[in-house]
């Protein structure tokens, strides 16, 4: 997974730090929605969305004017999510610390309104985290596979393959759920 949140260091970034509140207002919901799809719960989503904007705040100088700010934020968010996953996996191999976070609830258990939304969330459990990420970035954020590949730190072909997996599995699972 990509580790580079700041690939385009630019000392003359056009994004002023005082504009940051406007950035938060414009992009918070998009970042929040992505993270909620990935984590399936509002507690981790709250944490990770804050973490994303904190990281962005500390790296504003590295953002290159004229490039896709939304994609830059979504890449930071994705990295924050995978960092948390790694941390939890590594914690499981060690004695449980006092303040360890409880194991993740599967994405399907979050509160959701509407039957189709509920089925979609159950079907989501079929997908790997990367496939979920790719599906969301393409369908909701309408990023190109090139941009998604940049976020993943992989190739465009790999991004397409994950999309193939996501569409195929979601469709299959949803079809089975609707029949049952």
């Amino acid at each position: 997974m990509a580790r580079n949140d700041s690939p385009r260091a630019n000392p003359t970034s056009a994004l002023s730090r005082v504009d940051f509140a406007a950035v938060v207002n414009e992009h918070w919901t998009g970042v929040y929605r992505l993270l909620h799809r990935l984590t399936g719960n509002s507690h981790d989503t709250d944490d990770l969305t804050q973490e994303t904007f904190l990281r962005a705040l500390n790296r504003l100088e590295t953002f290159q004017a004229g490039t896709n700010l939304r994609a830059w934020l979504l890449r930071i968010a994705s990295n924050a999510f995978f960092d948390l996953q790694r941390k939890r996996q590594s914690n499981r191999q060690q004695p449980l610390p006092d303040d360890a976070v409880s194991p993740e609830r599967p994405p399907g258990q979050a509160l959701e309104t509407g039957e189709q939304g509920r089925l979609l969330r159950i079907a989501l459990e079929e997908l790997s985290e990367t496939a979920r990420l790719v599906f969301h970035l393409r369908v909701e954020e309408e990023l190109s596979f090139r941009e998604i590949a940049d976020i993943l730190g992989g190739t465009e072909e790999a991004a397409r393959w994950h999309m193939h997996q996501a569409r195929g599995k979601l469709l299959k699972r949803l079809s089975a759920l609707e029949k049952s």
Partner: protein
Amino acid sequence: MDCQRAREALLTADDLRSPAAALRDHLERCAACRLLSQQLARLEQDWRDLPTPASADASRLAFLDRLPGSLPAPVRRPAALVVRWLVAALLLLAVGSAAWLLSTPRAVAGPPFIERLVDWNLELAEAGSLAERQRLYASQQAAFQAAAVSLPAEDRELASLLLENGSRLAAHDDPIAEAERFSAVADKLVEKLHQAALGKDEKAIDRYARLQTQVAQRGVGDRLAKIEEAGVLNFESERRLEKVILRDAKRRKQLIEMLEREPELKRKEIRQELDLPTKVADPPPGLSFDFDLRDRPAVVGQPTQFRIRLANRGAADLVRLQLVITLPDELEVLDTRGTSPFRREGQQLISRAPIKLPVGQETDFVVEVKAVRAGAAKCRAELRLKQSSYRPVLRDWTVKVVAAGS
């Protein structure tokens, strides 16, 4: 294009709403592939239509609320870096020599040594300035290190922790880091208290109970009050502060459970020594702190919710309120709503942003849970606020959970 290729093309398509010409031709001729295309398009539309969780807006506002008015540029001056490296090197040296000295087996020293080390730590923390701390540190550090070499094995780890804490207190004036380290010392003292209880060593029980209270109150508690009073925190600091508060709440819970479980700790003096609050403490005048459960009883497997309502019926604003809710394993948290978003740590929920409750106002916190097994689920809410000097006001309640259909 055949059906197999059409299917592959659909599953990897850039945009299902505008298929390539060859695929479009196939779809016009093939009903099965057209159906697949329509199903995929519906799936993606359903995905886009999923609602944004209601908590998104509250967390955005909370974040903006804490966003500093003028954001400092993250520039590290070379001089500051050199100083940090020097401080780090000195700390390593101090910690290393303490560890070496403490690992050397020698004769036995008297028990007051740990008490003196604790006092020294607290004096360092309470000193008026960094210069004063450095003076205090320098005046005692060598003597403590020399005396530490003859400590009995069971006290070495605690002494090492206190010596390291002393060296860090002398190097930095950072109340959050201090609260974190005093928390570690308090945790270690609880561990020692537990060992003493298991060993039925009354003298050690009295000793560790007393030391634990000193460290928890003057070390952790006073640092927390200092941080709260200072008011201005960056985001990382707030998260660290939340963790210290949670750790404090957990330690208190652990002590209460130990007192209930260990016969050696049942003496009234020990409860007094540990200064554990009664389970239902008096809130400050004017504060109403109530709990209400929607479904009585709760049913296994069914979601239910409870509401914690805070109201200010007094004559002065209540400020900097922080709420910690501890739930038993019988209840699984599904969602939370309220004036302040919650952070979740295991079975504990902690309000993120300090809450202000002006005169005459009230605020609700709703916790959506699912009961996972039948029984009596004991819940606790701890409220800290400036008007109670940040000491917790407690509310305990029991949720009766019954099996479905009973």
